[in-house]
């Protein structure tokens, strides 16, 4: 049964939700950056309806840094300590359809054998409320990857109109949480959000990137794409920074490093980027010597290698974050469009 509350009562609902489990939701930032970021809810905080948070929701399951194991070293002896405490349930509110799909992309990496128990524990404890995208942005292209922002998945999917917020439990976990809200939510017909769904669908169709196609890509396109001469011009002005990788909800490469605290060693993992020259560097050599090769690796991985291993699923969800934040405005859309063009208008190189 679909449930609803007036927009004016959203804060009461959020407060109640935060009583069920710690609640994280997009809130506009303070200081020089007022864009939305996921913040732990405290009474009085305003949910930001901004389309996308600056950083993606992957942070909750795959944080930028995470302690894996601690060591105490004493002479020739070493003690190995598992530093983890049991995770508690938490609620993630306002996740967009694209970010929710990114969890599926990450799951196939982290939950495949051998399971990454750090990630698995967070996933098991996360309760996700998604939010349909009433106002998709010009940078959105999730539909290219088969994602429907009018039908976001999750434990509970939500819709927001000018007057009401609708809650649709999709899983048992979601139903249990909604039940705890009691009469803060009123029952309503599922059809009440139909108009909203149609509006979203028609808006998606009108977006500038709606015709972006994945036809030229997929697990079987290695030979055709790898030696394409246009990688050179596409990567020409790449700064080799890690912005695209770090804002990306599906990028999952990481590094493992030791940090000597002075009274023990913490072995932590942190996000890493295939765009960095040091990423594949070994004592014995470096398989990817140029920025073109590293740039190519990132996009080949998303558009060819990942789908080859995952039943054709692409490792991009069309959230548009890299479009908004790349310092040189080079991004997966430009790569896809360029490489989809017939080879004869190859540019000059």
């Amino acid at each position, binding site marked *: 049964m679909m449930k609803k509350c007036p927009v004016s009562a959203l804060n009461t609902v959020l407060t109640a939700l935060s009583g069920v489990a710690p609640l994280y939701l997009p809130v506009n930032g303070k200081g020089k950056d007022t864009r939305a970021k996921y913040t732990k809810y405290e009474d009085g905080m305003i949910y930001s309806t901004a389309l996308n948070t*600056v950083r993606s929701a992957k942070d909750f399951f795959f944080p930028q840094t995470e302690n894996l194991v601690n060591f105490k070293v004493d002479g020739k002896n070493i003690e190995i300590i598992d530093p983890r405490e049991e995770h508690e349930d938490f609620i993630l509110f306002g996740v967009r359809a694209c970010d929710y799909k990114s969890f599926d992309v990450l799951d196939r990496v982290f939950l495949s054998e051998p399971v990454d128990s750090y990630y698995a524990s967070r996933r098991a404890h996360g309760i996700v409320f998604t939010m349909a995208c009433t106002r998709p942005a010009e940078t959105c292209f999730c539909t290219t990857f088969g994602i429907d922002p009018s039908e976001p998945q999750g434990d509970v999917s939500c819709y927001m109109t000018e007057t009401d917020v609708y809650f649709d439990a999709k899983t048992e976990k979601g139903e249990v949480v909604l039940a705890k809200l009691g009469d803060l939510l009123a029952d309503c017909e599922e059809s009440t959000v139909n108009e909203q769904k149609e509006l979203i669908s028609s808006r998606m169709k009108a977006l500038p990137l709606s015709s972006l196609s994945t036809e030229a890509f997929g697990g079987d396109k290695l030979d055709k794409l790898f030696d394409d001469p246009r990688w050179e011009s596409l990567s020409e002005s790449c700064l080799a920074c890690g912005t695209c990788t770090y804002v990306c909800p599906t990028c999952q490469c990481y590094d493992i490093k030791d940090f000597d605290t002075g009274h023990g060693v913490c072995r932590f993992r942190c996000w890493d980027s295939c765009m960095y020259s040091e990423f594949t560097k070994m004592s014995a050599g470096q398989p990817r010597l140029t920025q073109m090769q590293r740039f190519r690796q990132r996009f080949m991985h998303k558009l060819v290698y990942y789908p080859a291993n995952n039943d054709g699923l692409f490792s991009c969800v069309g959230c548009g974050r890299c479009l908004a934040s790349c310092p040189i405005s080079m991004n997966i859309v430009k790569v896809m469009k360029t490489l989809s063009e017939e080879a004869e208008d190859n540019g000059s190189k």
Partner: protein
Amino acid sequence: MQTVTRETLLDKASALLASGEVSRVLGWKKGEFAYDVTPAVFESAEEMEKDFVYDIFSGANFSKYLIKETAKEGKVLVFLKPCDSYSFNQLLTEHRFDREKVYAIGIPCDGMMDASTVKALAPEGLVSAERDGDNLVIHTLYDGDKILPYADNLPDRCRHCKSKKVVAYDEMLGENGDVVDSHRFDEVAELEAMSEDARFAFWQNELSRCIRCNACRDVCPACTCEKCVFDNPKSGVENKAISDSYEEKMFHIIRAFHVAGRCTDCGECSRVCPQNIPLHLLNRKFIYDIDRNYGDYMAGAEEGSRAPLVNYKTEDPEAADVLERGDK
């Protein structure tokens, strides 16, 4: 007002390419939207006709790309806005590229927009934006058009422009401007006037957003080390991510020290930061201090000038004097 348009630049570049004077052009390439302009290398007039763009989003500073471009055969044409020309000079002072392999065209600048600035003005569904006289016109998907005063809505680096004078060029298109009184240190002074705790809280809030993507360093025309200390696993500070809350402060403060006296205040660091951290304020603090302690000095204003920090003079203030001034 000078009218240097896309066509002016296109004609000039095409002529230089046709005559063989240059073999490549560093220029801005149009994107999917109005604001996502990419630095690119053009090799023919046809390529430029197709994709070259020059408008309010042509803000990227090409000077650092010259290091890579001049290592190739032939001469490269570069367009230098006033800011870019300071970086150009500074790189020449540091012998980072071969001047003979560059044909520099100076172009006047009236302030450039950037993606994050217009997106802040129209966060939901930005279709396009352009300049119409003194106004910035933003077309949106859901909220119609927004018309705002152009100058007032520029990013900080341009709102507090230090100079409209192109200080290095082979040829100037349009009319060159002058060094301007920019009030660019006003915000630094405000920060200095804060209590230590308030200032710490300000930077804590800003720097805690850092994701260590290194974009600020990678775009910075003063950051041209072959191997950055932060990429060296043996430096002990190589970590790509924060391992404690102090880490990101250390990264930015060390970087600011490394570019002190060499930073030309082009503001690219703040433009590219995906987290909108006002990084240029750290550099301006150094410039402000250098000016106050050693007399006004602008890195890149003159090619070959010696920066006060590497140029001992008997009249330089003693360390104790500097410390005392710092206490105030």
